[in-house]
């Protein structure tokens, strides 16, 4: 019996460890351990008012603070019966697109690409792939700049409020974004070219179950219904039935299942379930790389992220143009009175569906909070594919599993907040 451990994976946002126990060619146990210290954010919220919630929940994650704060204000708006303006809807869409762009650029160019090109990091790639790295950074910057303009900064912005925004961007700021976004299109397209030219290993193949929000008529990242690849569709209020969270001792992220089956959320499920809603350059590029788009292989998530990056840049340009055409005007959040009640707000974060549930008292004070993150939903699915991968690699006689196994969680772009250790292997006993 031997234990294969990839301790504290590098280039993921958090403290994660892979642990696989192997006996001969049989996989006895697989664990994707998440050891991010518990912060009890839901408990921080209790007793505070709806006003503080978007600022607190953005602190859950530095890569996706925007989905957290928008899910939070949407939950409160449902509970209080608040309808926002068309301008606010467009600004929220743009804010989420900015987050998708910066997060996907970070993951594709700085975290995942070094794996496939055989480097420890993007900095070491500069000599040979300087253009790629610089274009990746430029793409990331465009997404971050969208967030800065809309929310005050790229991490933990402050303007997303229940009912709207505390500050409206100016025409000049939007024009600046327009030019920056247009320049960054090339970096998004290059990501599709890079990730479709890489030979993606096929060892993690196996039928998967997907979930994504139904974005309505157009591909997007906000919705009130969840689509399941079985063909079912549920209101987000049924989120508990869809996720079945369970605390497990080896992870501070709870584990999810749907009817007892692990499922996947994120770019791949979104592109698969909402493919018919893609358009423009993103759809063209998806059709060009169709033969590389293997939906049974979670490693395809990288390519799906690249397709989404193209979509997000293209759609951001459209949204900015629409805001300019309509004549952007300073607009305070709509007025409302808090009341007792409950609400579920859901958005698509870069890594998948994110749910926020709150119950309020009649002053708008939070009496109960429940937040279900995409990485928590994906954890059981990651373990499923680690097992499939380990079994297949062993049956092919592969001895050194670690670098291969590490590809699997990284493809999900797990958001467990950054880490500080070397990849190493512990063999408890030598293999039979």
């Amino acid at each position: 019996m031997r234990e294969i451990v990839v301790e504290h994976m590098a280039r993921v946002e958090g403290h994660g460890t892979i642990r696989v126990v192997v006996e001969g060619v049989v996989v006895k146990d697989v664990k994707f351990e998440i050891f991010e210290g518990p912060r009890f954010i839901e408990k921080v919220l209790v007793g505070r008012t709806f006003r503080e919630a978007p600022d607190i929940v953005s602190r859950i994650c530095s890569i996706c603070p925007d989905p957290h704060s928008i899910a939070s204000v949407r939950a409160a708006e449902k509970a209080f019966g608040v309808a926002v303006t068309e301008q606010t809807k467009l600004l929220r869409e743009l804010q989420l697109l900015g987050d998708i762009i910066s997060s996907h650029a970070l993951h594709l160019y700085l975290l995942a690409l070094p794996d496939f090109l055989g480097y420890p990091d993007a900095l070491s790639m500069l000599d040979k792939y300087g253009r790629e790295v610089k274009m990746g950074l430029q793409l990331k910057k465009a997404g971050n700049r969208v967030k800065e303009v809309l929310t005050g900064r790229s991490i933990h912005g402050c303007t997303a409020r229940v009912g709207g925004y505390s500050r409206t961007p100016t025409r000049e700021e939007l024009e600046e974004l327009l030019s920056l976004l247009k320049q960054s299109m090339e970096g998004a397209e290059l990501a599709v070219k890079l990730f479709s030219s890489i030979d993606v290993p096929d060892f993690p193949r196996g039928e998967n179950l997907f979930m994504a929000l139904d974005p309505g008529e157009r591909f997007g990242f906000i919705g009130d219904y969840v689509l399941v690849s079985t063909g079912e569709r549920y209101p987000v209020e049924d989120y508990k039935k869809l996720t079945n969270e369970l605390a497990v001792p080896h992870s501070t992220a709870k584990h999810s299942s749907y009817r007892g089956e692990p499922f996947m959320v994120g770019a791949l499920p979104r592109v698969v379930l909402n493919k018919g809603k893609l358009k423009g350059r993103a759809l063209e590029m998806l059709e060009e790389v169709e033969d590389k788009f293997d939906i049974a292989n979670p490693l395809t998530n990288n390519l799906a992220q690249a397709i989404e990056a193209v979509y997000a840049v293209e759609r951001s340009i459209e949204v900015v143009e629409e805001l300019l055409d309509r004549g952007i005007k300073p607009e305070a959040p709509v007025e409302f009175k808090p009341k007792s009640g409950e609400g579920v707000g859901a958005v698509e974060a870069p890594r998948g569906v994110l749910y926020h549930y709150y119950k309020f008292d009649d002053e708008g004070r939070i009496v109960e909070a429940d937040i279900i993150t995409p990485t928590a939903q994906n954890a059981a699915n990651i373990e499923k594919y680690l097992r499939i991968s380990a079994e297949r690699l062993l049956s092919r006689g592969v001895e050194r599993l670690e670098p291969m196994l590490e590809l699997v969680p990284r493809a999900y772009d797990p958001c467990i907040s950054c880490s500080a250790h070397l990849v190493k292997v512990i063999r408890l006993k030598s293999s039979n």
Partner: protein
Amino acid sequence: MAGKVRVGFYSLTGCAGDLLSILNIEDRLLEIFEKVELVEFVMASSNVKPGGVDIAFVEGSVTTEKDLKALKEIRAKCDRLVALGDCAVWGGVQASLTGLDPRELMKSVYGTEQNLYGFLGEHKPLSEVVKVDLELPGCPIEQEEFIKAFVSLLRGDLPEVKDYPVCIECKIREVPCLVVEKGEACLGPITVGGCKARCPYHGVPCIGCRGPIKDEANVAGELLMLMEKGWKPLDAINRMKLFAARYKDLAKLVGRG
């Protein structure tokens, strides 16, 4: 030839936002890293070099036994230790739970009273555990402040520490006072400046994310001011506790001093 300054970036419990703020300095990132020998930055690189470091940048709060062990190891192998961001300087938003029963916390979020994750029972700033040479506040840190500090440290100096409130920066940017004009629960008066009053400028009150001005923030005065504006003491204290729960005067005020 003397070698380059050896630098390591480390992360304890938090959202990774301070290290990400550094990766977000897109325009100057490559230039910054060329000047040093990068010993460790696991979020960005799987290349980790052995040996000590001249400067260790640490983000996150000391929340788990693992954090505690890691921090002591970092302290032992570095010359200068820099705390990055509110979690490392004040314990982060999670430190607002200080004083609550850890078993009850586990039960409410994870459904079991068992301490599954080596939780220390509270979320501490680095300075409560080891000697810290410099603290860069903010949730997250300000990029400009980081670059200035980085350059000073490379020269062997320590940068000047800010000791004025956010209010000064509202005056400089000519932002109308949110407390006076609108009666909002703004924490600008007790919070250390350096953010160019970002939140008030964007139309929302300061939530105190840069932490209280060390040894000078008048939290009792802030409480009285907010009560005069009609805020319930509970809400006003909750607001201050979000980023300043481990500031001793506030701890006294809420009865834990």
